[in-house]
């Protein structure tokens, strides 16, 4: 069983060709389909969800699943299915927000550190090491506590906590690409630093970053679920999968079934992001050993 897929140098530039090859992998296909459906679901929530996620109805609190409420109701009489659907939007928004921040901060810093070397690299590397020494959630909670609790603050905190991961990867890739001969060639006919970075280094360093982005999306999702569960993320009455789990836990002896749907949703979505990332890795960067 071969460990390393020989790297196909200079893959076709065309997206369609890549997609057709990539989607032949069943894992990738299922993951991508699931995620696209989920995005669609969250965008169409106002039209698809049977109820508003915040409509309370004490008369029907903690009801069993029925035709009226396919997943039953929670302790405030709100329809669980609707909350699940709307919650998807919050979770996806949260994940993309956190990972965008992490990439926008981390990638350029890593690129600069790798490209410029010397003291810039030393300083940035020390900062990366430092931030990575903090247990992620703990630092995120700390930052959230300082900024104020709430979804956006929480995910900004998570984004900050993830940025050293992107930075370290971007730096490692830059170090490799920087020594490629075509960079020297460009330098020899007078390319400026900016051009070298933008035209030569970035496009060739970006693939493992894409893989890492999908993996971070999974981690961000779990982070948001944790923060919302603890009451630090999405604030009630807004629906979130983590928050739903918190409520379900309180009423666990009454209606134990309530805690399964949101948990499964989180698990499946995180699995999908991970599967996507792993499949992308095979096609984009088979030599990466993983962080």
């Amino acid at each position, binding site marked *: 069983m071969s460990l390393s897929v020989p790297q196909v140098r200079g893959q076709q530039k065309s997206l369609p060709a890549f997609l057709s090859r990539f989607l032949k992998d069943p894992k990738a296909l299922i993951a991508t389909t699931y995620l696209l459906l989920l995005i669609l679901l969250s965008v169409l929530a106002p039209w698809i969800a049977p109820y508003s996620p915040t409509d309370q109805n004490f008369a029907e609190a903690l009801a069993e699943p029925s035709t009226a409420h396919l997943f039953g109701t929670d302790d405030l009489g709100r329809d669980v299915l609707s909350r699940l659907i709307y919650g998807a939007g919050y979770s996806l928004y949260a994940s993309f927000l956190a990972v965008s921040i992490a990439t926008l901060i981390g990638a350029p810093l890593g690129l600069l550190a790798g490209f410029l070397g010397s003291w810039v690299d030393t300083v940035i590397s020390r900062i990366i090491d430092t931030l990575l020494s903090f*247990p992620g959630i703990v630092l995120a909670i700390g930052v959230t*506590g300082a*900024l104020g*609790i709430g979804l956006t603050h929480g995910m900004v905190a998570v984004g900050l906590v993830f940025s050293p991961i992107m930075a370290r990867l971007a730096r490692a890739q830059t170090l490799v690409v920087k020594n490629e001969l075509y960079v020297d060639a460009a330098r020899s006919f007078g390319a400026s630093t900016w051009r070298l970075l933008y035209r030569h280094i970035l496009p060739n360093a970006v693939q493992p970053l894409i893989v890492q982005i999908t993996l971070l999306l999974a981690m961000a999702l779990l982070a948001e679920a944790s923060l919302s569960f603890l009451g630090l993320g999405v604030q009630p009455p807004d629906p979130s999968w983590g928050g739903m789990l918190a409520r379900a836990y309180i009423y*666990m002896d009454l209606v134990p079934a309530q805690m399964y749907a949101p948990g499964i949703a989180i698990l499946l979505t995180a699995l999908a992001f991970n599967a996507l990332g792993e499949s992308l890795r095979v096609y984009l960067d088979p030599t990466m050993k993983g962080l």
Partner: protein
Amino acid sequence: MKRIAKSSIAVRRLAQVVPVMVLATLVVFGLMHIVPGDPAVVLAGDQATGERIEEIRQLYGFDQPFLIQYWNWLSDAMRGDLSQSLLSSESVSVLIAQNFPNTLLVVVYAMVISLVIGVPLGIAAAIRAGSAADAAVGALSSVGVAMPNFWLGMILVSFFALSLGWFPATGAGSITEDFPEAIWRGTLPAVALAAGGIAEISRQVRSALLEVLSSQFVRTLRAKGLSSRTILWKHGLKNISVTLLTVTGLLFNRLLGGTVVVEAIFAYPGMGNLIVRAAINKDFPVVQGVVLSMVVVVVLTNLIIDILCGLIDPRVSQK
């Protein structure tokens, strides 16, 4: 080729740790200062009078330049004084001393479970690479990594605590007074945490072992006629020990973070509970104290692990 003195490895790593620690303390201290608005006002709370705000400003030295404040805070911290909780006025250091051991118990417990189950799983998967068993282990570890650990905790409580009654759903035992009880009470939290740990370790062990087993070096040994068992135990495991140590260090960091959430499920009196309550109530000294002590523990643990790695395989430290 020069021989590397083993002591110089340790010295070099120690030297690298210092700037990281300094930066880490700066980050922790800086947490209070990224608060939007005047920190004194925030600390004083909603009902505060102008006097109270001024009092707090003096007390915490907010009127002084940032670096002076930092220095004061740091020197206090190094003497063990982490200020008082804004809510209860208890000494933060005392609070941490009470709660950290409980957290550490669960973390270490979870690590032991992860290693005890994860390593054999990884080895088994590597030996039977490509088989259905390997695929099954792979699938399980994918699930383990994607599973929210607090959700797993909830499920464990539902079955093992509420339905079967084998373990308590809440609380922790005293480590010093009744260790067996402490272990019993810490089991469910540790298992909840360990799922991710088992997944991670078995993956890393599998891939590291596969790499060693398919290396040129091992193929030569096989050609010489060494039995598979000998190759596995003598050479395979020795070569992955560095990877294993490194992964353990990373896992420690991850688990420390994970307890924060898991403790909430079990009303477990640990660092997690401490920091979450503090964050909600804007009790900054406690938040800072918890973050600081955790980062110190992580840095020290990784330092020890790095030195151990360097001792086992000097080549590793030459980066």
